Structure formats: C-alpha cells, structure tokens
C-alpha cells in the first residue's frame, strides 16, 4: 500500500492549442515513463481523428514515478488527462474530481481564453489547487508579462508563483514537478473505510469488455472481490485491477488515493457510467461520491442511410460506436421523406460531427443527417411535460401550454475591438449579456446567457468570421426557460418534408422560412416538372419559391464515335447524384437537408 502523502493526482487544463499535450509528453519523459523519442508523437492523443482535429476526445490517465532529488523521497504522480471540448464538460468535471490539483496552462502570446476560464471554474468548483503555467515563452510573439498579469488578475496570488516555461524547447520544465509535489495536497481518504472509487472514464476492449478508469477515494479495490455500482446496484466479480502507464499494469490492489483501472466482466460501456461510485459488495459504502449525473444528450439529429438497403449496416455501425462511446444515444426513427433511420442524441455539436465522420469514414456509409435540434421541454394542457427531441414529435399547438428551451451560460473572450460585433451577434441570437470584465486593457471577458438552439446553427463560424478568429467561446448548460417556439414545415409540391421541419422562435419564423425556401431553391436541381417550395406554420404558408421545370436535356451532336465520351460524362455526373434522395416525386440532394445550417442571417 502506498501512503497517501506519497501520491499526487493532477490534471492539466488549457485552452485548445496552448500546449497541453506537449507538456504532458515532457512530464512523461522527465519521469522516465517513456523515452524522449516516443514522446514525440504526443501519446495521450491516440485516435486518428483526435490528431487531425488537435483535440483530445477521450480522457486517459498515466502513472509516473518520481524521486525527489534532494530528499530521495519517491512519489507517485497520476496525470489524469481531460477532454478538451465543451461537449464533454461533464466528463471533464469527473476527471477533475479525481484530482487534487491542476496545472493551468496559458499560452504566453495568446493569453487567457474562454476555455481557460471555463476549465478554471470547473477546477475551482472541485477545490483543486491551481498551479498557473505560462507556456511558449520563447516564441517571438510571446508577451509573458502581459499574460502573467492577466493570470494573476484571474487567480490572485503572487506573480512569482506563475511558472514560466516552454514545453517544446524544454525551458523551465524542471521546476514543474517539485512545485506540484510541494503545492498540490496529497489525496485525502480513509484506507480503512468501505471502498469508494470514482469512475472518471471508461473504454471498451473487444476481449475484456468495459474497462473503468477509477480513482480510489476510500478503502481498497482488489482483484477477486465482488464490486457493486452504486447508481444501479449491479454487481461484478473483479478480474483484474492495475495502474496505467502506456498500457495496463496489473496489480493485486489499488488503495485509497490511487488511480488505475478495473476489469470486471462488464459487457457494455454504458454500464460503467462516468461519475458512478464503485464499492465492495461485501462491505458496501452507503453514500455515493458526490457529483454523479446521468449524461444527457443536448443535440439530436436524424441519421439516415442514402441507400435504404444500408439501414442494417448503419445500425451495426452505431452499435459498434456505442461500445466505445457511452454518451452516444440512438433509437430507430422513421421519416416520411427519408425512410428508416435513427434519431441520435449527442453531448454537443462536435460530438455529433465526430460520430457522423466516423460513420462515413470508418464504416464507409453514405448518410443524410437532418438538421440538429436541441431537447425542448413541452408542457401540455393536460399537465404533462414531454421532452421533444425532434420537430416531428412536437404536439399540435392547441395541445401545448408552453415550451421551454435549454439555456447555456457562455463566456466569450475577445479583443476589445470586436465588442461591438459580438454584441450584435449576441442580439441576433437572442442572448442576454450578464456581465463583462476587462482581462487587461485590450481583452475583455463577456458573460452571456444564450438559448442553446441559437448556437447549434453556424454559430462558431460566424463568431470566428466577425472577430477574425480572435474570439474564444465556451459554455455550460444551466437550465430551461420558456420561449415562444413554433414548428416550421417545408413543403415540396404540397407534401410536407418531415426531415426539413425545424423548431424556431416565433419572431424568427418568417425570416427563417424565407431564407430556407431561397436556399432550397439553390440546391434542388431542376426537374422535368415545376417544383413549389413552401414554408408553413400550421396551415399558413409564410414563404414560397418556385423552381421552374427543366425544359430539355439533350446532347445536340452525338454520333457513333462520340457515344462513349457522352456516356462517361453522364457516369461522372452520376457520382455527384449519389447523394440524392427521392422525396415524393422530387429528387432532393443531401445538401438540402443541411441547408438550414448554411442560412445567412
């Protein structure tokens, strides 16, 4: 058993690209956990997609051993990695809950960003000791003094306590570990109390089933014992426990304060819920560790195969993804326009994009994804509350007492030059400003409350373009508020296309209807007959566009010798038509189902 005061559990929090992975790799090589060459590849990010996007999607943990050169005292340092995106903020909060301290990295030229602040809030909320670190101080554009002042403003404390480093160049890195050992408190916990271990992450292994990554808080977790999950009472016999290096290192037991993994024949990853508490079935703890909530989908979208015969393949692919991704939810859904598919629930927009990309890339599926929607709370006149995840589920207006929409608290950090643009955008998106702070004379932090539905339609791109990429944005879900939402339907030649319906704020319905009809007119190719595109609320048509009929489609000059050239041309065009879907009599390109997202407003 390792004594508690020889353990330090910590995480690294940072805005994207401020150097988290590089610093992690430095620590791994400093402690000899892996050689310097191996560290080149940023081992903490191991999914291909993560590398491409430069973000860490799934959390991992690594145990490092370090001996204090002055006293010779050995320490165990557990680095718990955290996902770097707001979609996974619940997972981030559970990873933070497994730690006692955090390295807060700030890029010395970029300065404090929105994600720095939201992660800092999460860390402070978990009572973590924060060690501020300024990274990339060697870069030509670095302004260490200015950024250090921002950090001190934010955290208080002594400017000398801010570590100044360059993880890439190896400047100042030797001071990090001694500082951590000195300032981060050792884990508290009672090794003799009944077992309580926090699941902060999980993964699926095709041979061993669901693997839970845990922080033991009290007691001891041993192989061969029966454990119980407090969320649902399920019990499992523990096959193996161990610590994490660059793989699993089996051990007989994990004691209080330690971080490691548990394999216990759990078949589905959905049964190792992040935030759940594991206890010993023979001597159970009564109180679960605080903070557990069932992760909720905040963005929904319908996924339909372009070729209806691919439905089974899509189901199998979703099943496979679900093995590794407990936060992905899906259930069969039927659309009049698109046939058989699945209603999928995601943590956020990025999560949705990742799943769609993986389905298309790894499973080679042609998909039509419908417009994303947020979950609405709909109160009917008979006093019930229903969670509506798709526009087609919305009850008739006459049955609705009120609709509540999800609200987020958002932080935007932006150079002062762009305050006006941000305010204009916020107003267009129905946001309420709740505060504003100057981080320094040139940068400002603005607090907002936004309806979630307003940021799932091209918000990030817009934000980037109006601030030339200088704004950073982060958010957290806070609750529900009543809003006059309505269902807007699109009709093609009089037939409603369910997959194009959206739920929209009353004051925006006309504008949306008009823009949507215009956009559809651009993307739907002309056909042999005229096509009427209408936007309607209930029975009332509020906008209309007409696509005139194609009058002719014939090659003027075609002789025996030209025929093959002509055929190849047609075959080439056919490739582009693959992503078309027949809706009634009208052939609609996949693009149309996403045109809502591309509407300029």
């Amino acid at each position, binding site marked *: 058993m390792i004594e508690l005061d020889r353990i330090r559990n910590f995480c690294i929090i940072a805005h994207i690209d401020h150097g988290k992975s590089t610093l992690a790799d430095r620590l791994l090589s400093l402690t000899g956990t892996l050689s310097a060459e191996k560290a080149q590849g940023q081992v903490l990010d191991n999914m291909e997609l993560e590398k491409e996007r430069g973000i860490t999607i799934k959390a991992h943990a690594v145990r490092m051993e370090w001996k204090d050169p002055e006293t010779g005292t050995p320490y165990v340092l557990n680095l718990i990695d955290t996902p770097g995106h707001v979609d996974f903020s619940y997972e981030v909060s559970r990873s933070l809950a497994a730690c006692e301290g955090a390295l807060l990295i700030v890029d010395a030229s970029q300065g404090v960003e929105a994600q720095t602040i939201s992660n800092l809030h999460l860390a402070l909320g978990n009572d973590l000791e924060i060690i501020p670190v300024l990274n990339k101080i060697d870069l030509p554009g670095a302004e260490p003094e200015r950024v250090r002042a921002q950090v001190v403003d934010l955290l208080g404390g002594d400017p000398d306590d801010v570590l100044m480093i360059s993880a890439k160049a190896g400047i100042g890195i030797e001071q990090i570990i001694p500082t951590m050992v000195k300032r981060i408190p050792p884990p508290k916990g009672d090794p003799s109390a009944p077992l309580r271990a926090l699941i902060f992450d999980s993964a699926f292994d095709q041979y061993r089933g669901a693997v839970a990554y845990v922080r033991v808080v009290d007691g001891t977790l041993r192989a061969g014992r029966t454990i119980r999950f407090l969320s649902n009472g399920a019990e499992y016999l523990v096959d193996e426990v161990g610590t994490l290096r660059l793989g699993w290192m089996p051990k007989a037991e994990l004691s209080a304060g330690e971080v490691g993994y548990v394999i216990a024949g759990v078949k589905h990853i959905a049964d190792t819920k992040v935030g759940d508490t594991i206890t010993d079935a023979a001597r159970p703890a009564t109180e679960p560790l605080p903070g557990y909530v069932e992760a909720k989908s905040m963005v929904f979208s319908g996924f339909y195969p372009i070729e209806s015969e691919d439905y089974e393949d899509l189901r199998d692919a979703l099943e496979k993804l679900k093995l590794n991704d407990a936060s992905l939810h899906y259930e069969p859904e039927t659309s009049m326009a698109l046939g058989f598919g699945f209603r999928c629930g995601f943590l956020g927009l990025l999560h949705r994009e990742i799943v769609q990309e993986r389905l298309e890339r790894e499973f080679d599926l042609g998909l039509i994804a419908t417009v994303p929607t947020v979950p609405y709370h709909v109160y009917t006149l008979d006093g019930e509350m229903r969670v509506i995840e798709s526009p087609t589920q919305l009850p008739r207006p006459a049955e609705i007492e009120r609709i509540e929409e999800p609200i987020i608290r958002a932080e935007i950090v932006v150079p002062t030059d762009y305050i006006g643009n941000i305010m204009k955008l916020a107003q267009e998106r129905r946001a309420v400003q709740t505060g504003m702070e100057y981080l320094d004379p040139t940068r400002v932090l603005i607090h907002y409350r936004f309806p979630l539905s307003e940021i799932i339609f091209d918000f990030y791109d817009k934000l980037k373009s109006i601030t030339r990429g200088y704004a950073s944005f982060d958010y957290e879900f806070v609750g529900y508020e009543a809003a006059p939402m309505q269902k807007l339907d699109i009709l093609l030649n009089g037939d409603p296309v369910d997959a194009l319906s959206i739920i929209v704020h009353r004051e925006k319905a006309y504008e949306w209807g008009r823009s949507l009809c215009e956009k559809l007119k651009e993307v739907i190719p002309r056909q*042999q007959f005229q096509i009427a595109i209408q936007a309607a609320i209930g029975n009332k048509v509020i906008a209309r566009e007409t696509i005139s009929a*194609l*009058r*002719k*489609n*014939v*090659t*003027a*000059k*075609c*002789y*025996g*010798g*030209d*025929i*093959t*050239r*002509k*055929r190849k041309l*047609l*075959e080439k065009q*056919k490739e582009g038509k693959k992503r078309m879907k027949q809706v009634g009599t009208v052939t609609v390109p996949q693009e149309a189902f996403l045109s809502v997202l591309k509407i300029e407003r």
Partner: protein
Amino acid sequence: MTESGAVPVPPDPERPFGLYVHFPYCSARCHYCAFYFVVGRDETRAAYVDAVQGEIEAAARDPRFAGRRVSTVYFGGGTPSLLAAKDVDRLLATIGRAFPGGAPNEVSLEANPDGLDRERLAGLRAAGVRRLTLGWQSLRAEGLRILTRTHGPEDNVAALAAAREAGFENVGVDLIFGWPGQDADAWLRELGEAASLGVEHVSAYELTVEEGTRLARRRDAGRFHLADEEERARMFDGTDEVLAKHGIERYEISNFARPGFECRHNLDGWRSGDLLGVGASAASHVTNARWTNVSDVDEYVARRVAGASPARASEVLPPRTWAAEDLYLGLRTTAGIDVGERLRLLAEADRAPLRAALDAARADHLVEGESRVRLTRRGRLFADTVFDALLS
C-alpha cells in the same frame, strides 16, 4: 480482358463498316469547336496524309476489319476541304485496295465555305467525293461573327452554287442555333431561308458550350449569356415544322434530309454499325470495343512512323453498357430501335433494368412503342434523361 472484365465480341465479317477520316487542319480557330484541330502547321500535312494512308493499310491486316467491305467513307475535321484533291484521291484509292469488297455507297466530305471555288470542288468530285456537307453555321453576319467564323453569308450562298456547278447533287449544310442574341423567331426565319435555298440535308445543332473551349472561357468570364432554356426549347421544337414545309424531314435529333438523302455514314453509326476512325483523335468502335487515337498530329505521325498503334484509350464494354449505348444511339433516330431484338442478346439480369428504364420513360411519355421504341416529341428534348436512366 479489360478492367470491366468484358471480352470483345467478334464482328460479323459479312457486315460492312463505315470509315471515318479525320483531317484536323484549319485555317482559323472557331471558338465553340471542341473537336481536335490544329491551325496552320502546313508543313506537317504531307506526313499526316501518309500516316493516315498507313493506318488504313494497317487496318486491312487487322482481323476485325480484314476482308470486310467499306460501306461509307466520311472525311471530317478540322477542315477536310483543305485536303488537296489528289490526297483525297490517294486515300480513296488506298481504301479501295485495302478493302476490295466493292465501292462505298457514300463518300462524304465536310467543306468550309471560304475559299471553296468550283475548281476545287470539281477536283474533289473527280477524286470520288459524292456528298458535301457545307459548314454554313449561320446565314447571319452577326451569327458568323459570334461563332468566329471566317466567312460571310454571301460565301455560304456562293459555296452552294459552286457545289451545284461542280456537279454535286447531294449537298447538306450545318447550322448552329441558340447563339447569344438569337431568339427563336430569328432562328426559325433563318432556317426557312436556308431551306429555301435548296439543300438536300440540314444538320441543325443547338450551340453547346463545351468545356475547355474559348467559348466556355468567354461565358465563364461573363462576356455573353445564352438565350434562356425556354427560348432554346422553342427553337428546337420549331425546327421540324419549318424544314418539313420544304420537304426536309427529321431523321435524327439534329439531322434532317429529303427522303433518300439521309447521311448513311451517320445512320450506320446510330444503328451501332462498326466504325473505323483513322487520323488523330478519331474514334472507332467494333461491336463492344471502343478506342480513340491520340489527339496530337505529331504524336500520331510519330507512332505511325514507328509502326506503333495510334490508339490511346481503349475499352471493352460489358453487355449491359453496350446495350445502353446502342439503345441511346438508336433512340436518337426518328425510326427508333427494335428493342426486343437488341435485348434478346442479353442475359435476363442485364435485360431487366434496361426494360425497366424504358418502361419508366414510357410512363413519363418520353418514349413510345412496344417493340420498336422511339422518342416522343417531348422525349427528344429529354434524350439524355432516358440515356441516364438506361445507365442506372
């Protein structure tokens, strides 16, 4: 074997084939032209004609053509009227020696109106040319200017007269409609004038902006706009009626003739007859095999001199694709195609989707007829839609 896995089907040795000679030389560039052509390069012509002659002689040893009769010869271009009469004479003599089964039924040559005098025409006729296609393109000065032609309307009229004087009894003209600034009424008037000048054959092509041409670049730069589709559909539709008044009947989507004066060479092509194309960029097809020569005069000549094949791309079609091409070509003709007869050659699995496509086209009123199937009047405007369905 090819990438499709299809095997070439041997041709019927009793069936004659058409021979197309491509002469790519031109005196100027027409901005709409997407065919392979070269401007100038006069010094290479002699070698080019020698190479063509060599290719014809080589084809006589090719088992796919050896011993078969040549039914038609067609000199296309480029500007084949720039060929010296003695070269035409030499090539026709070569064809006669290489394929001795009997004289061709038709020898056509495309001629440009400028510089086309009676002597030149008489020489071509003496060499054996019997059918002329005059590249009029338009009877309006504005149209000829927009199409960047180097002749005027009066040259067109003079060329026709010269052809008659030289003894040609079968003369066709090419016309292009739908150029920027021309509306349907203007086209139909122009077409009526052309017909009343007394020609045996009219090819009336809608102006097509082919990618890669100067015309396409000018369009992309916003320098002109074609008339809208509605207007162009009216031009297309009205063409039949105007020509019918002059006894000139449609026999293919863009081709019209007095009965008996249809171009046999092209008709053979639409009926999927075998075709040997010689010269740079010429395309050939024998049953389900297709190949195309290199589109470069120098490389063509060099390959011939080296005794190498000038064929660049070649392909052997699987049965269904082959049938789809045959059906499309056949449907382009007013007579249509005997679908039952063509589909009998296929396995059921290949036959069913083609039948289904034709049934759908019939339901959409694009084609009519059960065994012999034709495009309807509306279907002629949507021939490519039908082809598209056949290829699905």
